[in-house]
């Protein structure tokens, strides 16, 4: 896990560094102190924004006024920065932390996973991709509307009386419902949809090759004969590559986000500077301090 996390983080820091240096180089000498330069891209952006709102280009006068107001904003902005007015401003905090989140998402999706990464991901998450339980079974059912309110006892008695007859002879003993007598290699999730969760769940523990029951479903009391039960199995990598690809990307997004946060947070120590009161106890504050310093 660690090694996957490390890689994007290194990317992130490197890109940050490159941007920083580049920005410094480009800006060097041009934006001297107390000089505001309006360049081509500023102009284009201003015009584009205007057009977006008014569906026409600005007149010369409008453009000048726009630039004037941009400069006013820039001047105040620079001075505000100098006076540290951005500190502890809730809106600015929210914006900047959001920007970091988006950066991390972009970063996560920059490179598609390699085959090797996918294989590794698969080996670490194998349990998520197991095939479901699979059964071949025979069943009959007794329902209240067909067998009457004693359907459960009736099912028990049928089991006692006929448990030794051949499988086929059992077919006609139950009530007619639109489910097959024989299910061939049916997955647990399909059974769950057809007969309900409880029924599907109970099959896991039943013995093979004999009639057992009654087993409850939403319809009534079932007698069941399991001829084959396949336990969950691993799937071939190639056959689920697409799923892995999709899940990997999704998970990496979450991981990169968390990793960056954890890494950055290491640089901070959180101190709780609160005086205990009757409501906020001392032990709570100590525990709080501990909690806030773990991730």
């Amino acid at each position, binding site marked *: 896990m660690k090694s996957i996390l490390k890689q994007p983080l290194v990317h992130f820091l490197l*890109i940050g560094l490159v*941007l920083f240096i*580049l*920005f410094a*180089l*480009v*800006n060097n000498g*041009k934006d001297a102190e107390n000089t505001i*330069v309006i*360049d*081509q*891209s*500023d102009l284009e*952006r201003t015009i*584009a*924004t205007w057009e*977006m*709102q008014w569906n026409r280009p600005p007149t010369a006068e409008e453009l000048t006024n726009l630039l004037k107001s941009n400069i006013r904003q820039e001047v105040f902005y620079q001075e505000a920065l100098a006076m540290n007015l951005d500190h502890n401003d809730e*809106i600015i905090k*929210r*914006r900047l932390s*959001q*920007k970091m989140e*988006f*950066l991390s998402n*972009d970063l996560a*999706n*920059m*490179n*598609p996973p390699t085959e090797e990464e996918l294989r590794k991901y698969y080996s670490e998450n194998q349990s998520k991709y197991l095939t479901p339980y699979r059964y071949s079974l025979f069943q009959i059912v007794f*329902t*209240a*509307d067909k067998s009457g*309110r004693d359907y459960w006892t009736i099912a028990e008695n049928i089991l006692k009386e006929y448990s030794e007859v051949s499988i086929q002879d059992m077919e006609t003993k139950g009530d*007619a*419902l*639109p489910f097959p007598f024989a299910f061939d290699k049916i997955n647990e*999730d399909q059974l*769950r*949809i*057809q*007969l*309900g*969760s409880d*029924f599907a769940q109970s099959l896991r523990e039943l013995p093979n090759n004999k009639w057992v029951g009654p087993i409850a*479903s*939403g*319809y*009534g009391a079932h007698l069941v004969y399991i001829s084959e039960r396949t336990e969950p199995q691993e799937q071939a990598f*190639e*056959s689920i*590559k*697409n799923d892995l*690809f*999709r899940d990997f990307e*999704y998970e990496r997004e979450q991981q990169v986000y968390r990793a960056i946060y954890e890494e950055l947070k290491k640089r901070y120590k959180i101190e709780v500077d609160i005086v205990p009161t009757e409501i906020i106890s001392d032990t709570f504050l100590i525990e709080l301090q501990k909690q806030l310093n773990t991730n």
Partner: protein
Amino acid sequence: MKYFFNFLVCLGTICFLGCKEGSKAAAEADTSLADQRKEVIPFFENKEAFFGETHLHTKYSLDAFIGGNRLSAGQALKFAQGEEILLESTGKTMQLKRPLDFAAVTDHAEYIGEMYSVLNPNAQAYNNEQAKSLREVDGLEEGLKLFVELVVKNNRSSKPQHLEFFEGSMSTMSAWEIMNEQTEANYIPGKFTTLHAFEWSGAPNGGNLHRNIIFRDTIVPDLPVSYIEANRETDLWNWLEEIGHNGSTALAIPHNSNASKGMMFDENMPNGEPITQGYAEMRQKYERTIEIMQIKGASEVHPNFWPNDEFANFENAQSLENYSGRSFEEKNFVRYALKRGLQYEDELGVNPYKLGFNGGTDNHNGLMSNVEEDNYATGSHGYVDATAENRVKNTVDGWAKAYDINPGSITGVWAQRNTREDIWDGLYKRETFATSGPRIKVRLFAGYNYKESYETYDDFIEDGYAKGVPMGGDLKLDKGQEPSFLVWALKDPMNANLDRVQIVKGWYENGKLKEKIFNVAASDNRKKADGTVTPTDAQVDLQTGAFDTSKGNSEFMTKWRDPDFNPSNRAFYYVRVLQLPTARWNLYDEIREGVKFPGTVAKTVVERAWSSPIWYKPK
């Protein structure tokens, strides 16, 4: 500055190329995978009922985003497949009890371009003040203000407009592409079908004319169409006609006729003139089913106009009439439209309202078909009804009281395989049904020479197809023969037993629209000789929410004859299956969260399923 900009562009390009290559590789993997999977797509000779969602919103819907929805289409589709999802706005984890078979994400087409700008820092308008204010909505109060300002005043006016920071059709295109990619990535033929879709949200002066547009395949236009470009349903159909020339195949599903201020089934076209044959033809061509129920109420009938229908008092969302200048009218309801359609067919030769039924939620939290009453912990509209306390006191703005909202309904489609084509074709042929949540299955056939009874379900269904037509179809006159109907219903294995099945008949006779409800079968020997049924005494335990398991049927399978059949009258027949009473979601809120709802709020519901109609045509 310029160099810096160029550098960014380069970086962007590298990233873009990298991504392209990746998706190409993925596409290749796709084809081989599709080949492998083709072999294992289960096939059902007599068709199987597949359950799914046709109406759902993610963060790309402006109103849903304001309400705190941060789920993508991809996440919503994962939820549909049974995965657990954390709802950030509420901090609660949600999961379906059973996965769905198919699903469509239908975001409001109007503002997906704006949402692209709001959600993507690379977009030029990302830093626009209004875009920022949307991202920074903190809780209900602020959200409400924005909602009224941006959605209610704008989208429910007669001439809607884009928001001030709209960047043009490229941003809409980008959003649409993202949605389509995620829809594609989650399609597993045979197991889980995803449908490309969006919602056209026309609501002139608050009268709801919304339609969900569902595509048959991956041939989708570059852009969806919205209320801004297509002001009325006729413009929408023209657009559908146009994209049809470019190879797209789509249908339109109207919803919430109950809140349409008389406009959904108006006698007049948008230009004020009476409906013409041309209008009726276009409508029937594209509108094959209607969403008969969703979170904002059922649209089948209303007790004000159907006082003799003892089951009409059901999820009527009565407080709809308190908002947006709405009132209830008979002509807002589907049963009325079905009858009126018969008359139009007589007058114009075409029935504009030949509608089968499907169900949807319109859930604005991204929770696909989250329809079970005991799994409504997060409501359906973001912050406003996210907690039990809020559901007691809040109003879903412009719509209804939160306690009048229900979890919505679900669509069943009869199809031979669970693939995009089969599901879509099922919708097109109207071989569909809707339920108010439970996975009740219902079948209906009409034909001639059916046997009195059948040994097995399979024989019953085979004969149903062989000698007649399934739900959604047309029954033609067979001279001298009297038609009969095969009706079948099966309970949800994880819900209460069934109370009864009814057939609702509507017909047009001597210039008059008429209807009658027949009780076809009832559980526990309650059906009397005169055809009426003693109401069930099955109770819901108000302490626990448990339903009565000692009564009701698990299945109904029967043949029915129309005692009043008159071969010269146009008619339709649909089945309504009623379940024994169960707890409504607010009872679970009271039990689990200790809140108290007003005494007028029903504590129990009679859940139900509606089959699409079969139409009978003389000559």
